[in-house]
């Protein structure tokens, strides 16, 4: 494994890939998502773990997404996701509405090489009614106890942003343990990192338990402020001015195009080029 540029990283997501991405609090690789848009990736099957915001909205707005598997898309305190809303109304993306633990369970089935996982709840909902790929069985240990079973979600590529990676491809995730699930479930994992260290993270006794080992990591790109315009942990907050402009402008395709252009000129520009 070697450390690559963000554009090179984005080139590792083929058209039509099932791409799994993280929620805003986990670490969103916005610079890489912008690089994906720049190279014009098409027909993504996007899986959000379990929810998403700006990253999904911009990928949809830029016409990169064919199918969206999610528990919720929202820009949080900034408001509803405009491109997502527009795409839903126009029917331009195929929706696979889920519920948070069902996305985790599908990925855990993939992580464990299992065909399915059972999960409580979900019965008698319109979520289930609209997911013909989900099934209901009788609990084999208690007759009459119906339980939902969810097929494995096996992503082609996992993409996320982390605070620290080393040159071997080991990636430190701190308390964002769901990122390990993404990496374990996906066939390949590509990561952007705020910092790159020359040390071996697996040899750091304090950190090593929170490291995704290089075994799962296909490429790492150095991307300082790689989550912008989103925030990243304690490192930096969301760019509230940009987000507020986005939520208004992106209500129209032309306004979205302007915001996309601005983002492509933003702090990530030199990374994504």
């Amino acid at each position: 494994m070697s450390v690559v540029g963000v554009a090179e990283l984005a080139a590792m997501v083929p058209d039509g890939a099932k791409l799994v991405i993280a929620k805003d609090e986990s670490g969103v690789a916005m610079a890489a998502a912008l690089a994906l848009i720049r190279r014009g990736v098409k027909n993504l099957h996007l899986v959000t773990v379990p929810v998403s915001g700006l990253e999904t909205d911009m990928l949809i707005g830029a016409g990169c997404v064919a199918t969206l598997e999610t528990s919720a898309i929202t820009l949080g305190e900034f408001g509803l996701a405009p491109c997502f809303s527009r795409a839903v109304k126009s029917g331009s993306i195929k929706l696979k509405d889920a519920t948070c633990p069902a996305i985790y369970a599908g990925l855990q089935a993939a992580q464990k090489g299992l065909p399915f996982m059972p999960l409580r709840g979900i019965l008698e909902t319109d979520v289930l009614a609209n997911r013909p790929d989900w099934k209901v069985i009788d609990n084999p240990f208690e007759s009459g106890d119906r339980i939902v079973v969810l097929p494995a979600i096996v992503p082609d590529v996992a993409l996320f942003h982390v605070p620290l990676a080393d040159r071997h491809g080991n990636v430190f995730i701190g308390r964002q343990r769901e990122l390990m699930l993404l990496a374990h479930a996906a066939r390949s994992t590509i990561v952007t990192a705020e910092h790159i260290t020359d040390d071996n993270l697996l040899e750091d006794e304090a950190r090593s338990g929170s490291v995704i080992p290089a075994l799962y990591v296909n490429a790492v790109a150095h991307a300082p402020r790689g989550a912008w315009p989103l925030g990243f942990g304690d490192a930096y907050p969301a760019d509230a001015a940009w987000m507020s402009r986005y939520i208004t402008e992106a209500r129209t395709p032309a306004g979205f195009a302007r915001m996309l252009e601005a983002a492509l000129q933003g702090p990530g520009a030199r990374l994504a080029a």
Partner: protein
Amino acid sequence: MSAVAEVAARAAGPTEVLIHSIAGLLAGSRHVAVGASSPIPGAAALYTRAVSEGATRVSVLGSRRHNAFTNGGVELFDLAAQGRIDAFFLGGGQIDGAANINLVGVGSYPQMEVRWPGSFGSAYLYYLVPRVILFREEHTRRVFVPKVDFVSAPGPRDDGIYRPGGPHALITSLCLFDFDRARKRFVLRSVHPGHTVEEVRDNTGFDFDCPAQVPATPAPDAAALALIRGQVREEIGETYPKFAAQLAAV
């Protein structure tokens, strides 16, 4: 004037009444979890923890200081299924009289007229958390409908499904309802100061039980206000700085 009296000299605002009322619903919980974008429930949970002297544990998603989870996003859901979360909060773009909730949108799925974010964890947590508190400030017939357009999470039914959880209460900007699980109906418990039963009835699109006398929702006393304006405001400010600033300015 004592310090408590001074900080509490200003009368309780509507947000403080909500925080105090929700905290009342949480009393005795061993573990309250608070989801994303939930400053008022978060403040109520932190208030409950403060008055419990630590007997109530609180996990605020999105917080670093008030969230001890270390097993990733799935941990909340695992804990809920184990019965280790006593109380949680859900909202609803639409809520009906059978306590079905809709977080997905208005119209026919999938190409809905209005699309909201999505069901989040509701389809699961509603079944598993014993005290789910429905919280929606906007109290209109647009929100409280006869029947939801999309069932993100269903109210209790006699269907034999494993369901240790379910709706406990509904709190809005106007009032507080209990939910009677046996009768599967909301029961008006109290109306917030400055509002009336008629106002509640006019703005609610579903039928509910209403006793002859409906008391006013109790306002927090001076000690409670001091706690909300002091420790609770400081603690919730870590996750919701804007909300904490508004709380100070009320």
